[in-house]
Each structure stands twice: as C-alpha cells, then as structure tokens.
C-alpha cells in the first residue's frame, strides 16, 4: 500500500503532521513528532528515488481522475533527486534545532516553529513532484507563506521587517508566475505540464506564449534571487533564526531553480527559450554579473550570516550558468550544483548557528580567535569554506569542474575564465573569516565561551562530512543529475 501511494505520501505526510503538531500540548512531544515526520519523509523520498531509478518515472493521479483533467503527480529523476536532498537537509536541520531554537526564538512562539517548518517542507516537496502547473503555484505559496512566518520569528526587531520585505517581493514573484500560468491556460486550455507541452508544440510565434514566458521567468528569478532581483535575500537570511536560515538557504532557492528548469525545459522548449528568444545570453550575463557583485559584497560584510547570504546569491549564478548552456553537460552541472550547494550552504549555516548559540552574536569582530574555545566549530567552517570555494576533494569542486568542462566544450572561454576568476573572490571571503577565527586575539566573549554542544555539532558534521563524501563519491549526485538532464533534453517529462 505504501509503495503504491508513495508519490502522494511524500507530500501529505508533512502536510498532515503540521496541523497535528498544534494538538500536541507538550513542547518536547511536538519536537519529537516533527523530527520523526521529517526523517520518515526523508525515508519515503529515498524509497521513491530508488523506485524511480529502478522502473523509470512514476505517475500518480489524484482522486483517480485521468491525467490531463485531474491533477497528476509525476516522480521522475529530477524531481525525486531534488526531493531526496530537500528532505535530507530538512531532517538534519531539525535534528540540530532544539538548542538553537531555545536561544534564538521567543519560547512563547516555539509552538509555531514546527508546524510552519513542516508546511514549508511539504510545499517545497509539492513543487517538485506535481505535474500540474497551477499546483506549482499553490505549493509555492504554501512554502513561501510559511517561510515568511518562520523568518519573522527571529529575535531581532528587524526580523519582521525582513520577512515583510521578502513577502512583498515574493508575492510579486508568485503573482507574475500566476499571470504566466493564466496566459498559458488561456492559450492551451490545460494545466497539466506534459499536456501543455504537447499542445504548445513547435509553435514559437505566439505573442501570448512569449508574454507568459516573460512573466514566469521574471517571477521565478525573484524567487531564485537572481542578481538584480535579489534584494530580499540578505535581510531575510540575516535576521531569521539560524535553523530557519539553514533550512531555507539550502532548499527554497534550489526548489525555485528546479521549477525554472521544469518550465524552460519541459513546457517551453529550450529551442523557444534559448534559440528563438535568446534567454541564454541574458541569463549568462546576469549570472556572471551576479556572481561578481554578490561575491564582492560578501567580502565587505561584517556579519557572518549576511556574508553567507551574499555568497548564496553568487552561487545561484553558477546554477544558472549551467542551465543556460542548453546542453547535457551544462544542465548536469547546474543540477549537481543545486545539490552540492544545498549541502555546503546548509552545513555552513549550521556552523553559524553554533557560533550564534555560544557567542550570542555572528558579527565577525565578536568571532575573533574563536578557534581557541570552539575548535570543532571553527574547523567545520574551514571544511565548508573549502567546499564553497571548490577545492578538489570537496563537493564544490565536482560541480565547478563539470561547469568548467561544459563551458570549455561550448567554446565559451570568457565564461570559463570569469568563472575561475570569481572563485578567487570566494577564497577571499572564506579566508577572511578563517583568519579571524584562527589568527586573531580572542575577544572577551570568545574567552568565556565553550565548544558548541554535541547535539548540534553532530548534525553540523553530518553535512560537513557530506561535502567531502560527495566530493569523492559522485555516482549519486552526478549520476542521477546526468540521467535527469538526459530525460529533460529528450523531451517532455
């Protein structure tokens, strides 16, 4: 029975667990229940991934209504791959959560965190698995609304403002997406993605289609935080509680990138987007400008969280570079970087959470000499930072190497050169923190602090060691990603 309903169970297990959390009175019980749900969802999505790898894409018709009319869930290589790491990170971050939550979220609001967290997870998974375009919008709203609420829970008085900024930008993005969906619905009379792709066919001339595509691209670019539309991201990541930042930074933008890939490659064809309308030129340009501007901005930050937030904007640029290459190697590198960056950024934000717990601050000046009292946490930063730069034997190297070879194969030497140059900027901002941690006189706060508790270090190291593991063992990440890219380029999902 579980096997038969797997595609829908992945989404509804967290969706049902979220309201159930409200009925559990004991705070510990709520936490344990949410934790069990997250790990169970992780297990289910791994099970689904294994099944898809064995038998190929699985389709599930909700309410038993046949596909173009009813809502269809489609589990294919790409969606199950993204779901597997989203649930994995959600489970690890929640394992890490209790100590950090006690410190950073007002106790009277704890009971809101877990339902929101599960709803956000459920929304993200829904975006991945649904084969219905309107459903994508609904799940995008579920995940976005719950993430606004989660961000506003930060202790700082600026957290609600940051959440509101994100809400305004996010709502504009979601509205643009909805306008695009409406126009496509008017054009084709269907909301099922596969059916829509068939109906649109090779017709590349329609003005309606172009307008729909423009709205959807801009809408998703806001959600992905592509360079000129990234303004909501630094504040949202900085003022949210650490675990929320870790979860959202590692998953939300990646899932938006996923939705973008789906829309470009499965609905509008790459021929329409890249060959006829030349989106690849713009995407490449904005991605490169974004990488340089955001990495430079990261160098000048005095707040560790904000530094990582700017680095996230830069890293989305690498994913877009890969996606806009419009060939299998490029697309594979984009998809692999989604995964690798999720693990790296998730791990680094968990490190930041450890500092925030012990030092009550993540300003760089307060972290001076922290390696004396917090050696494990500081070392985790070094390893994660190496991954972010893309040093060999780390996950970051794998995706950057793939991207570089794809760029060289495409004979886009300028892109390849600029990409390598931009990695040097990452060296600068990572090293700046390493220098402060290891080669400065300890500050007063550092002298009186101690190492982060094991309950937080173990999940942190789970992700940090993941960076090293996936830097060497690539048959999971690159293997599935190239299969997914092949399926995307071979036609509709």
């Amino acid at each position, binding site marked *: 029975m579980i096997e038969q*309903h797997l595609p*829908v169970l992945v989404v509804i297990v967290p969706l*049902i667990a979220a*309201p*159930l*959390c409200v*009925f559990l009175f004991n705070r510990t019980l709520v936490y344990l229940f949410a934790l069990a749900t997250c790990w169970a969802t992780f297990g289910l999505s791994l099970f689904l991934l294994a099944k898809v790898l064995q038998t190929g894409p699985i389709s599930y018709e*909700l*309410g*038993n209504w046949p596909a173009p009319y009813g809502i269809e869930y489609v589990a294919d290589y790409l969606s199950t791959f993204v779901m597997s790491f989203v649930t994995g990170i959600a489970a690890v971050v929640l394992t890490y959560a209790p100590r950090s939550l006690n410190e950073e979220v007002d106790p009277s609001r704890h009971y809101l965190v877990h339902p929101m967290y599960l709803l956000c997870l459920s929304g993200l998974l829904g975006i991945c698995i649904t084969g219905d375009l309107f459903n994508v919008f609904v799940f995008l709203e579920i995940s976005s609304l719950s993430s606004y609420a989660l961000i506003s829970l930060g202790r700082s008085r600026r957290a609600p403002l940051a959440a509101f900024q994100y809400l305004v930008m996010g709502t504009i993005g979601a509205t643009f997406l909805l306008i695009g969906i409406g126009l496509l619905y008017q054009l084709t009379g269907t909301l099922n993605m596969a059916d829509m792709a068939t109906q649109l066919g090779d017709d590349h001339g329609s003005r309606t289609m172009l307008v729909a595509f423009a709205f959807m691209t801009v809408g998703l670019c806001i959600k992905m935080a592509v360079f000129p539309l990234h303004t909501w991201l630094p504040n949202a990541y900085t003022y949210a509680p650490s675990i929320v930042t870790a979860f959202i930074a590692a998953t939300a933008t990646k899932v938006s990138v996923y939705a973008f890939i789906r829309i470009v490659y499965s609905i509008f064809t790459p021929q329409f987007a890249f060959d006829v309308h030349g989106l690849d030129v713009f995407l490449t340009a904005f991605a490169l400008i974004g990488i340089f501007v955001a990495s430079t901005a990261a160098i000048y930050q005095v707040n560790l969280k904000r530094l990582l937030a700017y680095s996230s904007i830069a890293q989305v640029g690498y994913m877009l570079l890969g996606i806009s290459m419009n060939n299998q190697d490029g697309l594979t590198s984009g998809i692999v970087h989604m995964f690798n960056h999720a693990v790296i950024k998730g791990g680094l934000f968990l490190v930041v959470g450890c500092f925030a717990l012990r030092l009550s601050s993540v300003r760089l000046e307060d972290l001076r000499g922290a390696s004396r009292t917090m050696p494990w946490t500081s070392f985790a930063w070094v390893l994660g930072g190496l991954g972010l730069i893309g040093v060999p034997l780390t996950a970051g190297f794998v995706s950057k190497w793939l991207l570089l070879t794809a760029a060289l194969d495409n004979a886009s030497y300028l892109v390849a050169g600029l990409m390598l140059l931009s990695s040097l900027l990452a060296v600068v901002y990572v090293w700046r923190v390493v220098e402060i941690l290891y080669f400065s006189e300890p500050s007063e706060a550092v002298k009186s602090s101690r190492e982060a508790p094991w309950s937080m270090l173990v999940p942190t190291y789970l992700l940090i060691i993941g960076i090293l593991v996936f830097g060497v063992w690539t048959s999971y990440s690159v293997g599935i990603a190239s299969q997914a890219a092949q399926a995307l380029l071979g036609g509709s999902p």
Partner: protein
Amino acid sequence: MDNFPIIRVITKLLMPYILLFAFYVQFHGDFGPGGGFQAGVILAAGLILYGLVFGLPALHKVAPPPAIERLIALGVLIYAGTGVATMLLGGKFLDYDVLGHHFLPGWLPEGQHLGIFLVELGVGVTVTSVMTVIFYCFAGREPVDGH
C-alpha cells in the same frame, strides 16, 4: 458601542440570519453556488461584527482564541483526513468514489457527494477560524497566544 442602542439591537437581530446564511452557503454548496470558503468568510464576518459591536472580550467568550487556533488545524486535518481515509479504503488520495457506508443509506450522502461535503467542511472550519484570528491580531494589542 454602548451609546448606540440601534446598532446593538440591529446587530442582535441580524446575527441569526448571518449565521444561518453561512450554514446555508456551506451545506447547500453541494447543489448551488457556495462552498466552504464563502461560508467560512460569512460566518467569520458574523463573528467579527459581533466583536466590533459588543467588544473583544465578548467575542473571546464566544470564540476563545486557543480553540480558534486549534480549529485552523482541525479544518486542514478534516480535508487531509478525508484523503487518507480514501487511501485506506483502497482508492487513491481523495478518490471519493470509495467512500461508502451503511448508515442511513439514501438519506446521507455517499461517494463523490460525501467526499466533497467533508472536504468543504474542512475548508469552512479553517477559513472561519483564520479570518477570526486575523481579526484578533489586528483588534487586540497583545499577540494571540494560546500557550
């Protein structure tokens, strides 16, 4: 609002009709225009009117914030629970065709009819309570806090 007897009397007169209309829209939604969302908004509008005229403490007595907060979750559970029930009965998620029963056959709805009835009930419960909580958030200075 103590100084406005007309408003108080008219509100009291209107209240049953507002609530009745909400239930009509909810339960007749199967046959005519209406449904859970509209009914929920109308019901909440009735509650909000009561709160505006007779004060927040009076409304808190009718609709205690902790209970309302749980009703939000309950509505979602009714909806999702219907889906799980259809799965347990051997159908797909939200496949109402499998929803049969032997309790007063012919009188109580079955199959698709029963399914949409339950789902709309869930929607109605959640929408009513969400609207009320939004009113509480704006009307009260203290944050709504069930714990």
